[in-house]
């Protein structure tokens, strides 16, 4: 999407909405890191830095009835789809007010069917077939809804990735797969994971389009997703969109990520998705200093509020763990 097209298809409000979600994602994530380092978040938490354009740009393309199955670097998708910072922060802290009521850790298990969000489990890429199944339900009932899900470069090597892509192809299912190629699976670089340049090229093996986009350009991600959603909604089946990016911090906050070459990070930090987008908006004359400052103030207040809410929320009672293993 050129800036020009973006401006044609998106209102100024839309452009600011995107900015808001990206910056909220960044600010929330920065706070999580801080809290984690202060020992105020038990367990672990995944870094989001570098992934904001992907999670926000793609989920912005969803219609209200579409379903999304975000993964561990898709904080932006959860937020954008209506999961409040309060609930998510309480989730991070294991409080009863958290999405999973203290049962699951960090972004795991943050599903809410009333928001059309499917939560994820840790084994990867176990959300892919769920999205295909959601798409199957839409087809089954003749609904014009689409399912969107995500997987990493590392997860692309798992057998389940292949099975899910193939099943979606055979069913011509209304599903969009976003591959977040951040060049590492934990500490393992691409060179030890696969032998091809683009994961998206594998889509040819399933007979549907595989597209490569700049994962640090929120408008590009949005446009590609939007087109793929439209295609799926038309009944033309799945699309695989590979977003090239870089994980800018460790895998999770206990990991300093020091195995990533410094200059690779330097190079990508110049392409920081927030910087890129801010520059685009300014070039368009669609963002003023005051607007940005006001937005950031609003965001900071929201994040503060989320932390206050979470820390004021009660811990679950021990014996609560026994309840609700089975649905009635």
């Amino acid at each position: 999407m050129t800036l020009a097209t973006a401006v044609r298809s998106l209102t100024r409000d839309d452009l600011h909405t995107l900015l808001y979600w990206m910056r909220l994602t960044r600010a929330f994530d920065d706070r999580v890191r801080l809290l984690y380092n202060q020992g105020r978040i038990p367990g672990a938490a995944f870094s989001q830095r570098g992934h904001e354009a992907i999670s926000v740009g793609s989920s912005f393309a969803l219609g209200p009835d579409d379903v999304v199955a975000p993964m561990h670097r898709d904080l932006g998708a959860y937020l954008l789809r209506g999961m409040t910072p309060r609930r998510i922060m309480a989730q991070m802290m294991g409080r009863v007010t958290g999405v999973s009521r203290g049962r699951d850790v960090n972004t795991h298990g943050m599903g809410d069917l009333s928001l059309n969000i499917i939560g994820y489990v840790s084994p990867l890429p176990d959300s892919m077939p769920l999205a295909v199944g959601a798409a199957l339900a839409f087809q089954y009932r003749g609904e014009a809804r689409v399912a969107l899900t995500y997987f990493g470069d590392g997860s692309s090597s798992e057998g389940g990735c292949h099975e899910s892509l193939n099943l979606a192809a055979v069913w011509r299912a209304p599903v969009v797969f976003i591959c977040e190629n951040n060049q590492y699976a934990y500490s393992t670089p691409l060179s030890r994971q696969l032998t091809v340049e683009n994961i998206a090229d594998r889509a040819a093996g399933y007979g549907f389009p595989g597209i490569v986009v700049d994962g640090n350009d929120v408008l590009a991600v949005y446009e590609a997703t939007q087109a793929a959603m439209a295609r799926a909604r038309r009944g033309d089946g799945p699309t695989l969109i590979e977003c090239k990016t870089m994980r800018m911090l460790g895998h999770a906050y206990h990991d300093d990520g020091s195995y990533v070459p410094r200059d690779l990070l330097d190079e990508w930090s110049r392409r920081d998705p927030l910087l890129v987008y801010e520059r685009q908006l300014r070039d368009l004359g669609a963002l003023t200093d005051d607007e940005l400052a006001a937005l950031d103030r609003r965001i900071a207040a929201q994040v503060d509020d989320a932390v206050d809410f979470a820390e004021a929320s009660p811990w679950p009672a021990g014996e609560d763990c026994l309840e609700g293993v089975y649905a009635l």
Partner: protein
Amino acid sequence: MTELTYLQAISAALWEEMEADERVLLLGEDIGPFGGAFKVTKGFVERFGERRVMDMPMSEWAFVGAAIGAAMLGLRPVVEIQFADFIATPFDMIVNQAATCYYRWQAPVPLVIRAPSGGGLRAGPFHSQNPEAWFVHRPGLKVVAPASPRDAKGLLRAAIRDNNPVIYFENKYLYRKVKEDVPDGDWTVPIGQADVKRRGRDVSVIAYGSMVYEALEAAETVAAGGIDVEVLDLRTLLPLDRDAILGTAERTGKVIVVHEATLTGGVGGEVTAIIAEHAFELLDAPLVRLAAPDTPVPFSPPLEDFFRPNAVKIAEAVRKLAAY
């Protein structure tokens, strides 16, 4: 009442639930025009169409996962794993995904996985397994293993209507070997209730699946010798019917737990432990387990006959225990 074989009872439950509830659909390998490896779904695609009777590519992990996703979005899928032995392939999807979604984020997963299990058919190590114990060790799942046509039908109906993932082990050996009158109409066998298939005073045999018939046969054999055997059919393996287990232990004071699965780590250990913990004072003799030995399921007839528990071996164990 209609006389049905075990296999017909399963088909009937599927058929009637599909007639009654548009949300029910079937996924599995070769279940469409071919009617399934065991012909359980013969005629289904003709009646319900390919939309509701879906032949799957070989990718158990993904189609179980897709069934989970579809279940979350309001359908009620019934998946056939061609042989229970292949349930190890989608294992992760069952134990990590299906079993935990409700606990973690309150998403019910109304999913049934049908797994034809069991040996005695000269089918070797990979078409004869009884892997139920793995799933009994996974909170969030329910596990059933009917023995009679009546229970096969009633439990499958209950499983389809349950809002949790249910692993339904159907015993291949019984498919065409057992037959009984099954009531018509809309009734279910509740998940979680064992059934006393024969009342007796001297020794309890607790069994499930094909071993229920071997136990009943053994009971007849020893009855001639004046030993009165009670046979408890567990029917559901998770949750186990603790009251029924303790009840039979209390009535006879002597218990043998029998299963076709291999001994070590099998469901028999769990049942035995429940009794040893909660009915210890009522026992008149050591608890006894009778199960397959700890080996893969061997193919050759003499090997498999040695391997598989049967009425003769049960009768022997009953006699010994009665004499204790």
